[in-house]
């Protein structure tokens, strides 16, 4: 999977606290980056939503609000793409083991739709463990052809 385009420019690289305020902060940063990169409103909404779900996973399920753990956010823009990397310092998880939220028996579940929505809204999604511990999620959105 090609998750990084040649000639990408890094526009955000920062560490955030493991709080819900950081989720809002990251959403704003990423939306601003998407707008500057020239994405249209509908795509910006999808990018913001996917990034928000990803940040919630990092803060809530990864770092479990631990004040000693940080969430790393990096955003880079290519000619026609926006690439977002969000990593936590949590215990990690196996994405392939997540239940299918569209299965009849899971439709009325309270939770379990975050990763599904991330995959629905972004063009490329890669979830992998990072050393020494934690999970990095890479999200890529390509500009819609107008």
């Amino acid at each position, binding site marked *: 999977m090609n998750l990084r385009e040649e000639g990408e420019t890094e526009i955000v690289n920062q560490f955030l606290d493991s709080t*819900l305020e950081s*989720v809002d902060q990251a959403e704003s940063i990423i939306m601003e980056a998407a707008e500057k990169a020239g994405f249209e409103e509908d795509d910006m*909404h999808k990018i913001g*939503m996917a990034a*928000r*779900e990803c940040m*919630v996973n990092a803060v*809530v399920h990864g770092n479990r609000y631990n004040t000693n753990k940080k969430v790393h956010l990096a955003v880079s823009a290519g000619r026609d793409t926006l690439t977002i990397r969000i990593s936590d310092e949590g215990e990690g998880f196996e994405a392939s083991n997540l239940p299918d*939220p*569209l299965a009849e028996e899971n*439709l*009325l*579940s*309270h*939770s379990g*739709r*975050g990763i*599904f*929505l991330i995959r*629905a809204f972004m063009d490329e999604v890669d979830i992998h463990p990072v050393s020494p511990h934690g999970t990095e999620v890479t999200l890529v959105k390509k500009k819609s052809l107008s």
Partner: protein
Amino acid sequence: MSIKLNSRQVGDVTVVDLAGRITLGEGSSTMRDALRDQLAKGNKKILLNLGEVSYIDSSGIGELVSAFTTVTNQGGQLKLLGLNKRIKDLLQITKLYTVFEVHDDESAAVRSFS
């Protein structure tokens, strides 16, 4: 912006007007508490008006589902009103359009309660 909420009676239907963003944290818990209050009062015909809701995340979707199951399990009905296109799309891709009864017109929605 966090969520704003107002409840009103239209006949025997409780219309809960929501505005803002329903996301993890305050937005979700405000909606949960309001519905719990309505059920405690015996109001079991609930129309959630999302006309002024600009954004729902997966946690907010989870709260809508929990509200639906809680009301249904108590013998009540919960329906949705006034969804914007993005929230309708969200319900489509999560297959929840098959679960919720969704209306665009308040009068028709109120009349639809049995």
